[in-house]
């Protein structure tokens, strides 16, 4: 069967399809001026409908689904039918992975392709783990934030294994792009769920050092700030008692650039009970606009006021924070 578009033989002219009566789409429309590619599409789908209606699970049907998928990879009914045919024919599933490979890169945001891959990989079993991890890597080399691919990769790790090098892989991706939120999320996924590691608390110290380094290299990057908070999820006591955390805020604030994230974390630390000191007060004071009135007695309030001016898009949020501070007696 020809797969080269220039040499494509129309289905009605192929002897092996002579016994099939194609079924047109039942929505009443007919092209006024058929254009070549539309004709090819329509014809392929008409023949597909015929074998689908007669439930013909044969090699020629399998081949036809390839043509239909190449013309429209989003057509989920074709994918379903292909699975039925693959099951009936007992086809080689490794070949099937190769087939998906061939169309996946140009259709990497297509839900059907990812679901089909999962279906195939499930059937192959643990053997598929390295293939799937390799495949998602290839997709990430084109689009390192592809949500489908990350979802697939997480499924592979949990269902088929392969956790050994995952933290290193996250590291690799973050070296390439420290702003990759998906890679940060994956890192958290590994640290909290890998059966090979000791869990969040045991990994915390090393991860704090890792994330502090990332923050200092790009203080305006939202992801590592969130990651740092995530490392102390449910344990604000430990958060405020790790001097590295308030330190990184101070260090960034001293540069007087990219102040929103460190100020917001400092605010939270103070709200959790961190005792303010002169160093904090001074660095925040240095950020107040020169035309603002006398400094507020309460450091938390001052921080909120500064954030209102530095982050005007979210000024209502910072005003709300200011109005919802618990009363405190600190200076």
């Amino acid at each position: 069967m020809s797969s080269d578009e220039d040499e494509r033989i129309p289905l009605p002219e192929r002897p092996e399809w002579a016994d099939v009566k194609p079924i047109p789409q039942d929505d009443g429309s007919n092209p006024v001026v058929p254009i070549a590619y539309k004709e090819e599409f329509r014809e392929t789908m008409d023949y597909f409908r015929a074998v689908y209606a007669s439930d013909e699970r044969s090699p020629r049907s399998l081949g036809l689904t390839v043509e239909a998928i190449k013309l429209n990879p989003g057509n989920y009914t074709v994918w379903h039918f292909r699975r039925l045919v693959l099951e009936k024919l007992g086809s080689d599933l490794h070949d099937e992975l190769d087939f998906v490979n061939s169309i996946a890169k140009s259709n990497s945001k297509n839900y059907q392709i990812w679901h089909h891959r999962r279906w195939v990989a499930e059937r192959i079993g643990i053997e598929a783990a390295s293939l799937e991890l390799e495949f998602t890597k290839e997709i990430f080399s084109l689009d390192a934030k592809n949500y489908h691919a990350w979802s697939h990769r997480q499924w592979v790790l949990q269902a088929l294994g392969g956790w050994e090098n995952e933290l290193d892989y996250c590291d690799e991706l973050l070296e390439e792009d420290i702003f990759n939120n998906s890679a940060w999320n994956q890192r958290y996924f590994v640290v909290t769920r890998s059966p090979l590691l000791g869990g969040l608390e045991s990994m915390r110290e090393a991860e704090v050092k890792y994330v502090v380094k990332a923050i200092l290299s790009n203080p305006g990057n939202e992801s590592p700030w969130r990651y740092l908070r995530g490392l102390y999820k449910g344990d604000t006591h430990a958060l405020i008692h790790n001097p590295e955390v308030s330190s990184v805020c101070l260090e960034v604030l001293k540069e007087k650039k990219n102040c929103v994230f460190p100020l917001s974390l400092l605010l939270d630390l103070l709200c959790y009970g961190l005792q303010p000191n002169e160093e904090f007060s001074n660095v925040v004071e240095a950020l107040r606009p020169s035309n603002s009135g006398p400094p507020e007695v309460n450091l938390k309030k001052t921080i909120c006021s500064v954030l209102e001016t530095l982050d005007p898009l979210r000024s209502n949020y910072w005003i709300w924070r200011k109005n919802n501070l618990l009363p405190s007696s600190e200076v």
Partner: protein
Amino acid sequence: MMGELEVEKHVQFILSVEKKKDDFESVAMEHIRINGAYWGLTTLALLGKLGVVDQDEVVSWIMKCQDESGGFGGNIGHDPHILYTLSAVQVLALYDKLDVLDIDKVSSYVSGLQNEDGSFSGDIWGEVDTRFSYIAICCLSILGRLEKLNVQKAVDYIVSCKNMDGGFGCTPGGESHSGQIFCCVAALAITGSLHHIDKDLLGWWLCERQVKSGGLNGRPEKLPDVCYSWWVLSSLIIIDRVHWIDKEKLASFILNCQDKENGGISDRPEDAVDVFHTFFGVAGLSLLEYPGVKAIDPAYALPVDVVDRIFIGRR
């Protein structure tokens, strides 16, 4: 300076998409036409122009998309899937024609897709995603059959997808993503389970989606897209934190995504338009109370008067 919403142009654009069944894009979207119908018709309804499309034609075509399982396919002859089943129910609701359905049959199809752990599959092939949790809950709520689900387990599964940043992903551990967040938040709202959400934490994550241009992105460090004007905004409204974004700047962003010549709205300024982004842009403006656009319900994604008709009539 606020631009203007080109209502007439958008109406014409949507009608042209409906009529142009032969161009390549329409043909390529053939298998999800029922989603397209929901996007297009709900937009028309929000602009007060639902009457320009023939109701009977739409309703009879929709019913032809139903399969013997009770579920609906994306178009006639397509396999049933939960995605298209919701769109079918939503479109019928727009026309106040839910009574043409065998409600028990559709409900059984949807409830049959719930798994042991409370999650939902999209269809018999088993893909699991919190999108499907929302769809099942929204659909059965509209049909008045929410009790056919194991609601507690459904809620438990959604909560298991909550991340450390307060957001939600497609499956447990999945990256927080505005689209998934909308699905989880709306599902929790419909089931009366919003207490599971840390509204302040999530509200902050959501308001951080607003970038300098005023548009909203779906995840940190990604580009803004008009569709997030819906998913982020509706989530903020449901958790009562919408005042945390700059609404005027967002409205300007959406209006800048219009094709003022030919109608339609695109994902971001200067890009090609499509029905999907046209719907989400108009829906976003509705949530921002843009004059002339009818109110939309943030959880059901249908005009408020339609939702009122469904629920008030039921009591």
